[in-house]
């Protein structure tokens, strides 16, 4: 079980693609060519009457039942063995936990470091444990042919190994609502030494903690929809929210309110109660503890 060099997921999957594509191409060309030939050769202008009344042929039926059966069984077999590579995580794999929420990713490492991008060392297999905080998401790395759904309440995982340094796309593949297509990140594959340096840097960065309110916004995924820098996203920006006068719709009637503590709390606990004009009614209600709410409100107060 310890091959000299680890087979990457891409190396396991691509030959299966080639095999099935090749077989399909041969079949498709065969069918098309036969049809075109018959249509031209037996066109009514050349063949005014049918010259055969054949209603079937047992041998032909047997042949074109048995041969395709053998072919698809071969496809099944290769497909299955490639899949096993995706499922058998190499023992020496490094563990990372990917947390998905509407609509952002966060990756946390064994030593507590977290990052919005998935940093990995080149050449070391990585096992990604998949955790969802809300709905089903999909962890998709096209370059590595890896995909696994991130299902709330389930312990799914995936693994891959980057054999070259570089930046690779990471998509959410399972539809998860308004900003599904913005729920993208990257895998940053760094040479081992650079990776270690990055990790060191992040660890020391952990010391100078951010405001706990900001951490909560990050943790609950609020920043997936609300920016802190004034830019418009799916939801209104949080920059300068405190004291802003907001036009909202309450039970279908428009009114203007000043964003104070009561308003902010209500907007988090019952987002449907006051809908900000110009934004879709899509924010899910959050159940937060009172001290969390207090920290968030306090943070938003200072977010100028």
């Amino acid at each position, binding site marked *: 079980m310890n091959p000299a060099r680890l087979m990457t997921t891409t190396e396991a*999957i691509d030959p299966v693609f080639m095999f099935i594509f090749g077989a*399909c191409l041969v079949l498709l060309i065969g069918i098309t060519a036969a049809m075109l030939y018959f249509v031209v050769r037996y066109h009514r202008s050349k063949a005014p*009457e049918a010259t*055969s009344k*054949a209603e079937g042929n047992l041998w032909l039926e047997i042949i074109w039942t048995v041969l395709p059966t053998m072919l698809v069984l071969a496809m099944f077999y290769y497909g299955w063995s490639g899949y096993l590579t995706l499922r058998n995580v190499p023992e020496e794999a490094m563990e990372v936990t990917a947390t998905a929420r509407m609509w952002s990713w966060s990756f946390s490492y064994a030593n507590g470091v977290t990052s919005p991008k998935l940093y990995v060392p080149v050449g070391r297999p990585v096992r990604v444990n998949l955790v969802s905080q809300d709905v089903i998401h999909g962890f998709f790395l096209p370059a590595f*042919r890896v995909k696994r759904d991130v299902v709330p309440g389930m312990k799914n995982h995936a693994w891959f190994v980057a054999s070259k340094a570089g930046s690779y796309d990471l998509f959410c593949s399972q539809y998860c609502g308004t900003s599904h297509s913005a729920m993208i990140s990257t895998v940053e594959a760094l040479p081992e030494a650079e990776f270690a340096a990055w990790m060191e840097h992040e660890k020391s960065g952990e010391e100078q903690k951010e405001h706990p309110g900001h951490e909560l916004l990050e943790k609950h995924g609020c920043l997936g929809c609300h920016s802190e820098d004034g830019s418009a996203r799916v939801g209104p920006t949080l920059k300068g929210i405190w004291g802003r006068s907001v036009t909202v719709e309450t039970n279908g009637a428009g009114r203007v309110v000043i964003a104070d503590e009561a308003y902010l709390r209500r907007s988090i606990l019952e987002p449907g109660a006051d809908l900000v004009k110009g934004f879709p009614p899509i924010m899910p209600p959050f159940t937060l503890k009172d001290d969390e709410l207090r920290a968030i409100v306090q943070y938003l107060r200072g977010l100028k």
Partner: protein
Amino acid sequence: MSNAQPPQASFWNDTGRSGIAAWIFSTDHKRIGLLYLYSTFGFFLTGVLLGLLLRIELIAPGRTIVGPQTYNALFTVHGVVMIFLFILPSFPGAFGNLVMPIQVGARDVAFPRLNLLSWWLYIIGAVIVLVSLFTGGGAPDTGWTFYVPFSARTGTNVSLAVFGVFIIGFSAILTGLNFITTIHRLRAPGMTWDRLPLFTWSLYATAWVQVLATPILAITLVLVMAERLLGTGLFDPARGGDPLMYQHLFWIYSHPAVYIMILPAMGVISDIIPVFSRKPIFGYKMIAFSSLAIAAAGSLVWGHHMFTSGMSDTAVLVFSFLTFIVAIPSAIKVFNWVSTLYRGSISLEAPMLFALSFILLFSIGGLSGLILGAAATDVHVHDTHFVVGHFHYVMFGGSGFAFFAAMHYWLPKFYGRRYAEKPALLAWALMFTGFNLLYFTMQVLGMKGMPRRYYDYLPEFASLNLLATVGSWILAAGLVIMLVNLFRGLRGGVPFEGNPWGGATLEWSVATPPPTENFEEEPLVTHGPYDFEGMGKP
């Protein structure tokens, strides 16, 4: 059987009621068939408009015409309309009703009033779905698959839409029961099972799927409503529920539903190809039997929609294996159709061109399905535009093109007038080109990793998306020409008389347009459906 008895009034004239009531309360299978044709085709055009909007939005990265929430609602409504309001009800409802009773030699279906009720249930369900778009929290944004937990949390009007689909389900069940009974009980003397036209055979297989699978959809949808309205927590892991359970339930219905869409299409093709080749169908028994095999084995493969979901590897093994097994009967059909052409006398009129392009497009769809059936490769392309391309090849290139073939083949018979041939060929050429440009490109996009249901995408996908959108316009241009041509031809074209293509099934032996009672007297069937020599001989 063509003889010169005094003609009966055509079903267009003969009616006790007047105005619209003569249609919407008629129990004549032909009128109900036309009602289905107009309503399902109307929804098809609605769906096409939505699809074109999707493509315009995707023409370039970033916002083009709508925002993300609107885009999500658009593809949801596009999918729901195309699946539940067009492709599932259209074949049995429209052509099944129009043609099948005549093909078996009956005066009507077994339960004409139930038939009318089916149409009404369909319309009521469709109206409820439409209402859901404009009321409550706005148009559903879940995708046509309504996956929980998202569908249980979103603020949009999912409950009402799901209720509409639930009602439409009953329409399908009743149609299925009606057709099974008709085919068993109302066949004319001499219409033995091995003389049944293959279109009717395919409807028979379809009807069983409708009757057996649709109740599962109904239950699943009720559970989604209970989840939303009563908070039952059946699918919520925080309360001991399981989101994957929903996916199993949904696909236990929705995979067999694919066969409700494709089997009748295969039936149409099996009827058209022999007529335009003047040669009996090759392998009649194999084609009829493979319909039943597909209907039965197709009920056991739903798990191939869930290879990445986290279900057990054993389940992946079994479902992948069974999926490959179901591919075989479809392949057998393709080989038999192609062999029917051999040494025939082939005429390439509009119905035949659509039928032949069905074989190609369906083959591309089916072969790309092998990529999806193999566990290793499915993981990469699952939930990408590869899948979107794949199912459009099967549902649109397959069922859709077969539907167009059926329109060009049977509608002149029922309207008594014919369309112009040249514009029909032009429309076909444009649609075939545009179609491949659109959906083949989407499959390539998926191979490159572009996920589906993506409002926005990275710049690396831009040029192929532009190409696909251009393809959608060529396709749309062909569609417009086809429609205008059919509309003008069937209303004011030259009269369509007798049996110009020389079909041997019973619908070609009745008057044009058929009389209300279909046959002057109960027919006695003396030859097989593709026995072009035996026709007319006693």
